[in-house]
């Protein structure tokens, strides 16, 4: 019946890249073979709407079922793609813009639609106020107004949320928001104006010098001496993040002040109200789902997209990070599988508007009244499930999640906040230490734990707000819809929450799906992290890469310019002079370190002055011995092997280092090219002055850039290896950055961005000498 009713219709869908939207598109394509779809997609920064649709909608595993169905029936090369090509039209538009940002052609396409299903929303429960207002509050209104302006009157089905009823107890029937006795009649236009004003204020505030100074300080703390361009970029990121935080806080405060759990529910409620006022002649139906979770049956049991609201909380418990559950055991958790929501939307669309004047009718899709799931039951089910299917820690040991208690929301928050505070303090302390390699990784684990705790805290704060919503959402209209369905519809468009067997749903469908989505360890074998490194390494060593650039110090060898200098300077010295030299360097060390921390190339310029007057011939001769005595002794064999692997694959290998040419000369056979510092000479002696700016920091990035340009290589296909945050510019310009024995900051950055991290060590057993001085006295004679 539904399929017939929708056959031959043109249906526009907004929000099709989202969880609900994707499921909706899939169902319509699969079960209503004769309808056409128009998808309104926001143009991405890098991708066109067609690319976005392909990547973010049709590539999803949601369509796997349909893909295999048509593949067995059809005989074309790519039957699924053909269907999409034939039945789906993607238009560029944005519900956050007046007029939806449509061009004329796309507007005409929209105008040709019989039904518009609006499911676009910022569902994130901590969205900033301005964003929520633009999309959730004004979105439906903009659609109605655009349709009116186009002179058409399709049926508009607007997806909202049950939580528009606000934080309260008692029953919440399927009536318009303004008809509720609890409705607080705020002026939605005033809310829009104020939100925009708040945004402008926050933007202005964030640019005040004292804030900017803070942002710069934070950027430097995170990146270290990464060079001006990167620090500027990071500072700007910090500023925008700050503005967002301000607006998130503003949204939450305004929502709570009006009795809604958060800005999402508030803006959705005001959006319904605004739509009622501004819809003109457009007939409107409103569908309000509760908390949408993984699919009960369609397209496959357990299908879910993205990491949704309840999952982080569940995973946090399973990981033993949380011990208590916010809320009361008797409370109802109103979860509804996504496929039931899709069924309800399709049924509403097929049925058409209820009211003759087109004024909004409301259908709620919730389980709380017809088939309630109590917190107690959910917690029990989760506990029992994780007893049988524990998560594993990174040592391959199962985590005993223990008994979960109940507490007030405040209790859990306090518990988590303490953990977050403790972890942040430890994190800061570790960050200020000069660590690298294994220790740095340890610090990044610490940071990871902190972030995990922080995330859990956020979710508890938000989710906790919902646990306080003890309203029971009426589903009379939904059940009426169900009663009107024939047998086929009940199979294809099931929408009745009474069919859910919660035990089966939680045990067999939802939790397995959540655990799979969360990519956590579910057995004691080598876990996901191991696999990821292997995968990244395979990418790095793929024959399609063009080039591999290497830093020298602490990437290939555990040594630096000071040790090379000390070795060269001491080679021909008598023992007592050697001691004097090393004492001098030790005395100078703090100053050198400080200089290096501020600006690497200034440090090099300053340090290399001491080569002034050194005889060129002698230094070149000694460099050959330096190679064996210092450089190879302190080298990382795995690093050298990696260079050679790249070469064997036909990649261009380049060494880019601030070290001096004569120091790296013996390494030349290892690389195709070497970009390094060099010094001017006069009368066979070094002047101590550099030829050019040494390749460090951002000039290393530009050296790499110029090199690639000159050699006609694509940096997106290049790999770069480096060890410190000051190498970030170089790492960022290539497609495949690799952090080698990263110091703390780079370790954190690499982990966040999912870069390959290599821990390379000196050959165990290599001679360890305390001071980098030449071991025995070198030759003092001339060769013939």
């Amino acid at each position, binding site marked *: 019946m539904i399929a017939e009713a929708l056959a031959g219709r043109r249906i526009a869908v907004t929000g099709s890249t989202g969880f609900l939207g994707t499921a909706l598109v899939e169902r319509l394509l699969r079960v209503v073979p004769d309808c056409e779809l128009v998808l309104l997609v926001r143009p991405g920064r890098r991708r066109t709407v067609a690319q976005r649709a392909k990547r973010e909608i049709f590539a999803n595993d949601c369509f796997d079922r349909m893909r295999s169905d048509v593949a067995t029936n059809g005989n074309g090369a790519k039957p699924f793609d053909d269907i999409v090509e034939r039945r789906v039209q993607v238009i560029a538009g944005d519900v956050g813009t007046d007029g939806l940002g449509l061009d004329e052609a796309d507007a005409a396409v929209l105008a040709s639609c019989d039904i518009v299903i609006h499911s676009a929303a910022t569902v994130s429960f901590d969205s900033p106020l301005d964003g929520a207002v633009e999309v959730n509050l004004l979105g439906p209104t903009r659609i109605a107004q655009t349709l009116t302006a186009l002179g058409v009157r399709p049926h508009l089905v607007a997806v909202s949320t049950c939580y528009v009823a606000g934080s309260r107890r008692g029953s919440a029937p399927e009536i318009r928001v303004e008809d509720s006795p609890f409705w607080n009649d705020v002026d939605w236009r005033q809310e829009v104006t104020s939100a925009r004003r708040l945004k402008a204020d926050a933007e202005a505030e964030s640019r005040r010098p004292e804030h900017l100074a803070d942002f710069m300080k934070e950027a430097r703390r995170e990146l270290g001496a990464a060079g001006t361009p990167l620090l500027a970029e990071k500072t700007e990121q910090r500023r925008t993040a700050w503005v967002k935080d301000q607006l998130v806080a503003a949204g939450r405060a305004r929502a709570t002040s009006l009795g809604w759990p958060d800005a999402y529910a508030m803006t959705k409620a005001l959006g319904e109200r605004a739509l009622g006022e501004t819809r003109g002649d457009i007939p409107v139906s409103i569908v309000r789902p509760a908390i949408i979770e993984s699919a009960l049956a369609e397209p496959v049991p357990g299908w879910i997209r993205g990491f949704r609201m309840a999952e982080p909380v569940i995973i946090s418990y399973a990981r033993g990070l949380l011990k208590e559950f916010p809320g009361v055991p008797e409370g109802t958790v109103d979860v509804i599988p996504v496929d039931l929501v899709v069924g309800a939307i399709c049924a509403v669309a097929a049925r058409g508007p209820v009211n003759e004047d087109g004024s909004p009718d409301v259908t709620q899709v919730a389980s709380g009244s017809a088939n309630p799931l109590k917190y107690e039951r959910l917690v029990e089910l989760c506990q029992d499930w994780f007893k049988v299917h524990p998560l594993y820690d990174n040592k391959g040991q199962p985590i005993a999640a223990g008994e979960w208690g109940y507490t007030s929301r405040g209790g859990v928050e306090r518990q988590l906040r303490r953990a977050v505070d403790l972890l942040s303090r430890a994190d800061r302390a570790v960050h200020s230490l000069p660590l690298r390699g294994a220790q740095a990784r340890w610090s990044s684990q610490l940071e990871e734990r902190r972030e995990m705790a922080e995330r859990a805290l956020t979710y508890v704060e938000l989710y906790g707000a919902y646990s306080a919503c003890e309203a029971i959402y009426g589903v009379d209209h939904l059940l009426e819809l169900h009663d009107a369905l024939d047998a086929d519809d009940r199979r294809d468009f099931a929408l009745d929450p009474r069919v859910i067997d919660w035990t089966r749903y939680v045990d067999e469908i939802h939790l397995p799906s959540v655990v799979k989505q969360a990519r956590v360890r579910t057995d004691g074998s080598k876990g996901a992290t191991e696999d990821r490194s292997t995968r990244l390494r395979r990418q790095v060593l793929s024959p399609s890469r063009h080039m591999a650039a290497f830093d020298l110090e602490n990437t290939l060898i555990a040594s630096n310019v000071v040790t090379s200098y000390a070795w060269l300077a001491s080679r021909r010295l008598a023992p007592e002079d050697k001691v004097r030299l090393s004492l001098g360097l030790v005395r100078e060390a703090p100053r050198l370190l400080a200089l290096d921390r501020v600006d690497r190339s200034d440090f090099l310029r300053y340090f290399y002055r001491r080569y002034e007057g050194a005889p060129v011939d002698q230094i070149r001769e000694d460099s050959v011995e330096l190679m064996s005595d210092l450089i*190879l002794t*302190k080298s990382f*064999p795995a690093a050298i*092997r990696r260079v050679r692997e790249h070469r064997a694959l036909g990649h261009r290998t380049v060494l880019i280092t601030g070290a001096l040419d004569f120091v790296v000369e*013996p390494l030349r*056979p290892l690389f195709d090219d070497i970009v390094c510092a060099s010094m001017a000479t006069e009368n066979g002696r070094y002047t101590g002055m550099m030829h050019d700016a040494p390749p460090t920091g951002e000039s290393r990035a530009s050296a790499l850039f110029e090199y690639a340009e000159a050699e006609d290589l694509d940096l997106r296909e290049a790999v770069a290896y480096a060890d410190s945050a000051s190498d970030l510019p170089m790492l960022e310009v290539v497609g495949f950055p690799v952090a080698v024995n990263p110091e703390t900051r780079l370790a954190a950055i690499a982990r966040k961005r999912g870069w390959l991290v290599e821990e390379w060590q000196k*050959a165990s*057993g*290599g001679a*360890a000498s305390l001071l980098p001085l030449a071991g025995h006295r070198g030759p003092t004679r001339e060769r013939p």
Partner: protein
Amino acid sequence: MPRPGFVLEVDGSTPPILFHHGEGFRLEKLPAGRSRVVYPGEPLEPIDDVDQAIEDALLHPLDTDPLPALLRPDMKLTICFDDVSLPLPPMKRPDIRQRVIEAVLDMAAAAGVDDVHLIAALALHRRMTESELRQAVGDRVYDAFEPKGLLYNHDAEDPDNLSFLGTTDKGEEVEINKRAAESDLIVYVNINLVAMDGGHKSTATGLASYRSLRHHHNVNVMRHSRSFMDRHSSELHHSNWRMGEVIRNAGVKIFQIETTLNNDTFGQDGPMSVLAKREWEWSTRDRAAFVGLQQGVKLLKPAARRKAFQTWRAPYGLTSVTAGAVDPVHERTLERCFEQHLVSVEGQTDILTMGLPYICPYNVNSIMNPILVMCLGLGYFFNMYRGKPLVREGGVLIMTHPTPWEFHPVHHPSYIDFFEQVLAETTDPLEMEQRYEKQFAEDEWYRHLYRTSYAYHGVHPFYMWYWGSHALEHLGRVIIVGGDPKAVRRLGFKPASTMADAFEMASDVVGAAPTITHLHNPPIVMADVT
């Protein structure tokens, strides 16, 4: 009169037996009634007047004119000498090479020879460092020749400095150092520590290139060298002798000077002397010295321990110096070698045990990495036989060595990659020879390190493995006691924590009451198995 080596049958009264264990030692009780220990002979009486002996040899060579008669002013003379891999451990200064070279140089000077080069005949070994060259040839020779560029290491990868001399009747290419090949006379100064050294191998191997070496340094040849310590049953030597003939036919004249040393490895007194004594003869002082040695070693950190052992210089005595034509000289040398090393042993055994010491030919002043552990055990020690192997076919070899996962980054770079890449894939010598040898041998980076740094040639770890290929084929199981389990497994062997565990593990292969033979080496002993 020194006592010869002998075989001890272990009974209830036999004390625990000494096993070398890298830079350390173990005492192991061997099962009574079915175990025996092969002891080396005591050091032969050394020659008193070494200089006189050298002069006698040079003036009364075998099958050739006295050295002075071969020297003339306008000639090209090249003195080649064995490299740092001999002797083991290095000998107290003055090294015998220094004494021989000085004598040769004196005669050359007397004859007015100007054009003299000295070349360390190291084949694909690492270059010798300055201090190692000084140890071998002495400061006087070093200071007179090195600064003028007349004393240097052979470079098997210098295309401009190799001469192709022809091919043997078996198709083996002969390519050796050009300066040596073009000289009017090569004087080769050798140390024949074991029977494998010397003869035509000195020149045909020591001065050769990879192109030439690969004809006898390969799995097939090594599997047919039974053993490579027995020159007349060794395909390795047959090949070298064929090459020697090509060299001779090419007009290259060689004046071979071979020397043999006695078994005085650890001294007659001093901290290490106890190691050369038979356990039941240990005095109270010896026992105290041994406990002190063992405890002292334990106190040191690994690097310090290694350094302490590597500085040991053995007080060897010279037992012979023979000069002249290669073949007759070498036969006499072999006699002297066997006189010191050979011990008659009756019948093979089910289990062969050996304690591996801290040094082998390729880790002088370096680190004994796992591949060298394999080579020392399955290559050198296993092949210390004449007739048939000490252990029966399908028997078990048990070695003691800590086998740390450690490599010298400068000396053994290709070993590291061999261990990480090749051994991770296969321990079968034939397979690695086919799949990987060429790639390592012709690698530019290894070549660069061999030529300019102090690295063994890229192909060298393969040769180490080939050295053990006869043993690998022969043995049913190899167990290392006290080794790093991960490294031992990578070698394809079984790790055991104690000797008792090792015997238990061996019983799977050789049954519950196997016969056991312990090769009490070093000092060097070679079994004449009948």
